[in-house]
């Protein structure tokens, strides 16, 4: 499922450096500087959080940081919009359950 596009008739993709990052403790690879959501999607990860009220699965939706669907916990900070937050080496990304906690 998903993955990066290897060959495109029109576009050539200039990806950033390949970096490792972690989702709920598991290691994945993505390109530095590109949105976390792009890397998640390419790795087949679609569910980013559980909604506040009904616990419904939520994921990527608007891609422009405007819809609140893609909140995750990134390096311990909840409610990070992963669709517009650039990926960095070693980032720790977690599925967010409900409101999120600050401790």
């Amino acid at each position, binding site marked *: 499922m998903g993955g990066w596009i290897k060959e495109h008739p029109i576009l050539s993709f200039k990806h950033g450096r390949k970096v490792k990052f972690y989702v709920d403790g598991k290691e994945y690879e993505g390109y530095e500087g590109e949105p976390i959501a792009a890397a998640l999607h390419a790795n087949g990860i679609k569910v980013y959080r559980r909604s*506040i009220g009904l616990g419904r699965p939520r994921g990527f939706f608007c891609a422009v940081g405007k819809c609140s669907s893609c909140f995750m916990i990134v390096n311990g*900070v*909840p*409610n990070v919009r992963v669709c517009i937050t650039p990926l960095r080496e070693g980032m720790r990304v977690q599925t967010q359950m*409900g*409101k*999120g*906690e*600050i*401790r």
Partner: protein
Amino acid sequence: MKRSAEVVIIGGGIQGCAVAYNLAKMGCRDVVVLEKNTIASGSTGRCAAGIRAQWGTEMNCRLGIASIEIFENLSEELGADIGLHQGGYLMIAYRESEFEQLKRNVALQNSLGIKSRVISADEAKELCPLLNTEGAVGFTYHHRDGHADPLLTTFAYAEAAKRLGVEIYSFTEAVGIDVNNGKVRGVRTNRGFISTGVVVNCAGPYAREVAAFAGVDIPIYPERHEILVTEPIERVSKPMLMSFSGNFYIQQRPHGSFIMGYGPEEHLKSHALNSTWEFLEGMARKFVRLLPRLSGLRVVRQWAGSYEMSPDAQPILGRVEEVEGFYISAGFSGHGFMFGPITGKLMAELILSGETSIPIDMLSYRRFQRGELIREPAVV
């Protein structure tokens, strides 16, 4: 729309809806509430909705604790959740003189049966572990203080009133009050005339304009206050944090968001409701100093509301002597929501029997003419 009613209430905020509900509950069901916009769209819906009994005058203490007692059973009484959270108010003093005053307040409160107390910094940190107590010289706390949802509460009152027969008209603006021979005859609205012998002015920041319809001048003026709210997180802070010298109030609501505000040096005295960046930044600085570990919390919305100010920052309650049938419940100066349940009840008592279960004579608007202003030391 009804063409006549026993009582017409102008204003669909907490005051108007609580007066209407209490009237109907006491048997007077031929009541109309006029709201120029929608229920709770004015000051009520914009407020931070703290509720407390930690006051510095006997009158406010009595009203405060009586209101809390009503709040405590209100969800049940009205048949709808009002979002009550009794995490207490944690009052923080940063000056010795202020702490002395808080202690005097506690003594007064205790004498009136309010179980507030002076607490230590350690106890304060137990209540709110993330609190930075630096610079604080003392704390007081009352566990029954707290917060309710102003929107849910007002809608609950409105719905309960409607079930008892009250009519609530949204987008219906009072444009005049007909007075004949010193008696109220009816209210003119943008949708026609309603004849009535009793009008209650619950128009909040517009109370002066509404009183003028009946030829009465009351010294209420609007003052812009600002507020902001954050995204929700799991509960980390139980009490409302409040300080008079620190000039802030901050509360985590049951929903998880933090709501907060402070008073700038000078408030805009108009009906304008623009937000300012000065407040946004100023509030953020206060918050981060107080709760540094929550500096990653995000503001999702800021807005402004009008305090309905009276010259001594105390409500104007009661009948208007020059115009028979004209009543005022306004001028709450920032505390209208927390007093709403009790003043709604008292006003209904006054209208129906001429007596009130808590004496409110000193809150008559005549106090300004008589120069008998009230001095409440416990306000932000």
